[in-house]
């Protein structure tokens, strides 16, 4: 089973839920941090990183001795990543989406592909639960394309019975790349107007992907009851409410797992997993 943890709004507690869920289960599992712009799960789980793999995107390289300046490459490129001006052929690797179109249309076979470094995928193991594994992506500073790095992290899926994915915030392509094809989306929000607004966007995205979902309300009691009312109206099960509690905020600030600071949460997160399992099985049976 693959559970993705998403939110719409940033800073609502995705990583808190992902890491504590992971540390509460005695399952054969892996955690994949797909927030490749700002991965934080490692700060709480302290994985032992054993392997580092570069993520490269293929970009065109033109052999000028073969090129007849026919401009077919420039015509097919929708991203303005290759230009022919007089005798010069210029490529703009940072604009390239690696579609390979220029290489396919070149009648002289003057275009080959070369690698452009865009990020790193790190893998390793976790102490808690024992035998669990960990993977995360890191978008290189200054690079724009998060989805290829996310896809590379998700190549690690399937090695364990349970995969927990920590998704990036938002509702655009990086989030879709992290949620797509997962069995369940656990949405984490806070009970504030911003939390509610961005939750409604995240729910639309989840509906588009047709994945069952449930809700965790973090910092419950801090704001108003807009989120609860919305969940009820939309028939989204509220699986857990974590109260606003300075002890939780303080543990988080130090990089300490909630289940370590307040051990009673271990059973609560186990219960959360049981509820998710039941919802996934119900969808499977339907």
């Amino acid at each position, binding site marked *: 089973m693959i559970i993705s943890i998403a939110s719409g709004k940033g*800073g*609502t507690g995705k990583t808190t839920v992902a890491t504590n869920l992971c540390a509460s289960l005695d399952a054969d599992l892996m955690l994949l941090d797909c927030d490749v712009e*700002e991965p934080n799960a490692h*700060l709480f789980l302290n994985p032992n990183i054993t392997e580092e793999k570069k993520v490269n995107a293929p970009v065109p390289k033109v052999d000028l001795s073969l090129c007849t300046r026919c401009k077919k490459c420039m015509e097919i490129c929708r991203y303005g990543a290759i230009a022919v001006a007089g005798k010069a052929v210029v490529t703009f690797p940072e604009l390239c989406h690696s*579609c390979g179109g220029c290489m396919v249309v070149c009648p002289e076979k003057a275009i080959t592909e070369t690698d452009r470094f865009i990020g790193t995928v790190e893998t390793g193991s976790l102490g808690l639960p024992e035998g669990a594994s960990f993977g995360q992506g890191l978008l290189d500073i200054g690079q724009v394309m998060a989805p290829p790095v996310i896809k590379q992290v998700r190549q690690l899926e399937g090695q364990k019975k349970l995969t927990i994915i920590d998704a990036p915030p*938002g509702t655009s392509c990086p989030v879709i790349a992290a949620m797509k094809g997962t069995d369940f989306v656990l949405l984490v929000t806070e009970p504030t107007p911003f939390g509610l*607004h961005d939750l409604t966007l995240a729910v639309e995205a989840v509906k588009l992907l047709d994945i069952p979902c449930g809700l965790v309300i973090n910092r419950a009691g801090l*704001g108003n009851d807009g989120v609860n009312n919305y969940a009820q109206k939309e028939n989204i099960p509220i699986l857990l409410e974590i109260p606003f509690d*300075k002890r939780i905020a303080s543990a988080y600030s130090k*990089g300490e797992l909630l289940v370590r600071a307040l051990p009673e949460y271990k059973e609560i997160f186990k219960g959360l997993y049981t509820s998710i399992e039941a919802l996934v099985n119900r969808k499977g049976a339907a």
Partner: protein
Amino acid sequence: MKELVILSGKGGTGKTSLTSAFASLAGNMMLCDADVDAADLHLIMNPDIRETHDFAGGYEAQIIPDACTGCGQCMELCRFDAVKPVQDAGIFHINGLDCEGCGVCADLCPESAITFEEKICGQWFASGTRFGDMIHARLGIAEENSGRLVALVREEARKRVLAARIDILLTDGPPGIGCPVIASIGQANAVLIVTEPTVSGIHDMERVAQLAAHFKIPAMVCINKYDLNPDQARAIEVIAEKRNMAYVGKIPFDPAFTKAMIQCKTIMETHGDSPAATQIRQIWNRVMAHPAMKMDRLC
């Protein structure tokens, strides 16, 4: 004309609450919401929308079932796994969610059976608010090209700021360090990084600080909810100095932010005498006194 972009790396540190507080202090200003993915500034600003424009952000390929002969070339060409066979039909189908809009399949289909049309990926708005005008947008769910929409709203905002002789543009940035963030900082006077005294807040601040340095945009740092962990707050001050970023102040944790948000108001309007509001005034003064904010970047 000057532009300040409010960033954080990590989401939820208070970018939008602080941007709206600044809006009530800045005088002759304009607002730009560059978080087009999960825009929230309008919830405080309650904008009166005067103009609505479509954002045609890209193209999408679609196979005409009757014209498809099932040769499968499109599937072979597609690098994004967007083309899939239709079960028992001998033809193919393109999944719009996976289509990158490169058009390679459409250009090369031997039967010309693939349409390739521009699609509307969102909308952008020009509005009035009680503090000044505001340019904002909404990207469609699951759409691509958020960076292009961010670039567009900023360009519109900067154009209007110049035409109306506005002193300062306040841009509420997106979280992260990727495509929309990069689109939100180019040519700005400075970025203000709002962080929090947590391991994640610090980690993400360092990544966005590196990004600002990479693009040579001066950066300042302020700490929100500093009293959650004063030791981490001090560590942030040290990092700011080490990275050559001006440290402009710290704001205590204050439920007044949430109370103001629930009333669709800025904290300056509802709790103007609170310790948090006092700190925000000081931060604003220090930001405006920063050398990078003295220069006119657009004239």
